[in-house]
């Protein structure tokens, strides 16, 4: 259990080659890539489920799958994409790979706990999917699992869903404890907090949110499972229970969950932009404060998901104002990124394209987010396709774009080879067009009367739904150049060298891929991770 004990990481005791990616490896880099590949697998699963949804919605009648199946599919789509793709990848994959480099450590604070946290994910994911294949009926009450609906749908599927989410939540908490301990306690001597790369701050903030909010979700799901299994009445109105209490506790986690999904993305973009714009990150200090501001505000805005749930007026008012103010720290970050680009020497490669796509999509999603924070506005569009459009702009247009940007940026570090730029640009183009075509029309649909989570709809909305489905098809196709790129590059890609981007953050100051304990000698002390532009002549260092 000791990190510095060489036997723990001794190569002789660990499988080598590709096999170690299927082992209980304690190496943070192996674990990071395990998260990445496992997450990408579930991204394809979730994407296939999205394909079922968009195919069903090509026509206004429920004709492609049965109505029960449709609700199972939308429940699984949400759960898989959030808990098995975005959260594990943007936190677990990049966090595990990068954080030890950034703090100048040879591994995470608790390598064994780290491996345990990862290995909770594949069984949880397979359990979730097996509830459809084996138990005969998966959960049908949406990823929100609102009672009393979740008490009346087939119990087996709902219980399996709860168990799976509890496992994934536990994994997430273990990961967060590890990140907090690593950033605060494992920093290399001489490295100050305000010298850390921004992703460390983002992960610190994210992990605080995980530690403070995920247990509440676990608690409320345990109560929900009591209602299902033991027939207690916490959330069963027929037994005197209160369904709105479930919603409060659920959103106490699930609103911060949005920041658990986007804050790490903010951190990754803050690493990528300076490298490819050859400029220091603009406003480091305000960026740090804005992350912490988002963490704080993120914890006190949950009830804006419940404006139509019969919340009292004072609550609606408080949560409107608190939610709106999240726009201020978020705005600071975007203005700072634009200022980072301004006056730079911008390389328009795939990583930069996806980062800029992220900025545009997220600004759009942020603006619709401000509209949704206003009670009177939200009362009309709550639970409609406007909301579906909004949050896909945040989590897909925002976070998933950043995951792709990060993949192009760090793939050379992972493998020592560069991804092909032409395929990368094609991947960006298809993703950007497909994404906007898919989700932009949904805002209009929501404003004009299409609720979310329906298998059938007003025939007047057919054309825009078909347009949206075409967008989804293009998004599905956009995965092909990425997969092709990864396969072709792995076989005979262009060698990247140790530091193809001439980057200054610590992970690039070792070989690519890095040795087991990260550095051949002592960990370098990097006090200016964004010191670009100072010495134009020796930019290579």
């Amino acid at each position, binding site marked *: 259990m000791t990190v510095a004990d060489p036997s723990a990481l001794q190569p002789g005791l660990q499988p080598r080659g590709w096999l170690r990616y299927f082992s209980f490896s304690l190496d943070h880099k192996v674990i990071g890539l395990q998260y990445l590949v496992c997450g990408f697998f579930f991204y394809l699963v979730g994407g296939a489920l999205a394909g079922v949804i968009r195919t069903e919605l090509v026509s206004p009648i*429920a004709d492609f799958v049965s*109505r029960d199946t449709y609700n199972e599919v939308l429940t699984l789509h949400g759960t898989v994409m959030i808990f098995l793709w975005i959260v594990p990848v943007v936190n677990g994959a990049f966090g595990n790979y990068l954080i030890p480099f950034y703090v100048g450590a040879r591994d995470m604070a608790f390598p064994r706990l780290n491996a345990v946290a990862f290995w909770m994910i594949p069984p949880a994911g397979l359990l979730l999917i097996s509830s459809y294949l084996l138990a005969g009926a998966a959960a049908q009450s949406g990823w929100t699992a609102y009672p009393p609906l979740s008490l009346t749908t087939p119990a087996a599927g709902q219980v399996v869903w709860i168990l799976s989410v509890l496992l994934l939540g536990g994994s997430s908490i273990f990961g967060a404890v590890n990140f907090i301990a690593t950033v605060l306690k494992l920093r290399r001597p001489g490295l100050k907090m305000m010298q850390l790369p921004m992703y460390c701050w983002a992960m610190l903030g994210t992990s605080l949110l995980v530690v403070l909010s995920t247990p509440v979700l676990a608690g409320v799901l345990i109560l929900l499972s009591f209602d299902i299994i033991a027939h207690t009445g916490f959330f069963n109105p027929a037994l005197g229970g209160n369904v709105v209490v479930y919603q409060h506790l659920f959103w106490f986690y699930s609103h911060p969950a949005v920041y658990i999904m986007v804050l790490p993305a903010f951190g990754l973009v803050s690493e990528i932009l300076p490298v490819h714009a050859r400029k220091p990150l603009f406003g480091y200090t305000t960026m740090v404060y804005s992350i912490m501001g988002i963490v704080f505000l993120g914890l006190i805005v949950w009830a804006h998901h419940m404006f*139509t749930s019969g919340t009292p*007026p004072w609550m609606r008012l408080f949560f409107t104002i608190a939610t709106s103010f999240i726009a201020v720290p978020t705005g600071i970050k975007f203005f700072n990124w634009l200022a980072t680009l301004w006056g730079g020497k911008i390389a328009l490669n795939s990583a930069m394209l996806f980062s*800029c796509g992220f900025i545009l999509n997220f600004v759009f999603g942020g603006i619709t987010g401000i509209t949704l924070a206003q009670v009177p506005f939200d009362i009309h569009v709550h639970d409609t396709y406007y909301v579906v459009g909004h949050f896909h702009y945040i989590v897909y247009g925002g976070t998933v774009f950043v995951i792709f940007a990060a993949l192009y940026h760090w793939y050379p570090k992972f493998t020592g080879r560069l991804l092909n730029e032409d395929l990368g640009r094609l991947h960006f183009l298809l993703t950007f067009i497909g994404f906007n075509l898919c989700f932009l029309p949904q805002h209009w649909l929501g404003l004009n009367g299409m609720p979310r989570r329906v298998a059938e709809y007003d025939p007047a909305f057919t054309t825009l739904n078909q347009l949206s489905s075409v967008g989804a098809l293009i998004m599905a196709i956009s995965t092909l150049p990425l997969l092709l790129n990864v396969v072709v590059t792995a076989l005979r890609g262009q060698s990247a060298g140790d530091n193809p981007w001439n980057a200054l953050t610590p992970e690039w100051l070792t070989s690519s891929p890095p040795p087991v304990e990260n550095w051949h000698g002592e960990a370098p002390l990097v006090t200016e991770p964004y010191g670009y532009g100072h010495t134009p002549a020796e930019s290579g260092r």
Partner: protein
Amino acid sequence: MQIRTAITAALATTALVGTGLLVGSQVSLLPVAASTNAPPYDSLFRVLFSIGTILFLGILIVLAYSLIRFRRRPGELAEGLPIEGNLPLEIVWTAIPAVVILFVGIYSYDIYDRMGGMASLDHGAMQHQAMDHGSMNPTQMDPTQLADGIEASAERIWGGIGSTQAYVDQTGDGSEASAAVPPLPVEVTAMQFAFIFHYPDNDITSGELHVPLGQPVQLRMQARDVIHAFWVPEFRLKQDVIPGQPTVLSLTATRAGTYPVICAELCGPYHGGMRTSVVVHEPDDYLAWVTQNTPATTA
């Protein structure tokens, strides 16, 4: 040089704001407005749409300009400028959004107030008002009508928009409603997968909602099984219908016609099919409908 930059920036900002206002006021993305709530809602929408357009276009333009103007030419190896921050600038772009947000917040509060959302600030007062009203109009608080197995919570209104007082406020908006007209009570029961409307004054039960033009209507909503939501896009109103927690929704229709009533909360396999219509009648037509549908026993 400084002056030229300043003038360019000022012109660009003016053009941007102009475009935003133009788009916000000219582009309509909403369905027809058919209730007193809709006009204030639509003006809030226009304001937010304008602000959003200005913000989005502004960022788009700055981003596109940066990518073109500051792109690295082939073979170029130079670094960018070593600028690590600019405190006054950062203060400016913290302060401006904060002011805009504050304005939006106050404005939307005002709209919400005009929609009757702030009519009563706590449960106690709301309950009290309902009681008072009950004494004036005995049919409204008859416990036998509201009690639905859950005796303790049946008399309590848990939330909603526009309590019994809302219609008084709405007269200020130029609607045809007058303070003298009491709201028409309608009991809404939501179940898998239908809405049932009951008119206690006339003992009419209907699968469609019929309301007279210009008269305030108070929907008292209860769910029988799971959570549903009552939504009429043309009225810009939505309220969850929650089992065990009765809610109210006050509205005044302003445009005759037939509009969809949609369930907006996932309620089971046929959730997508859980829809009906609201028919807004001219007052005379409404009376005719009432006469036609009143059961013989109570007529």
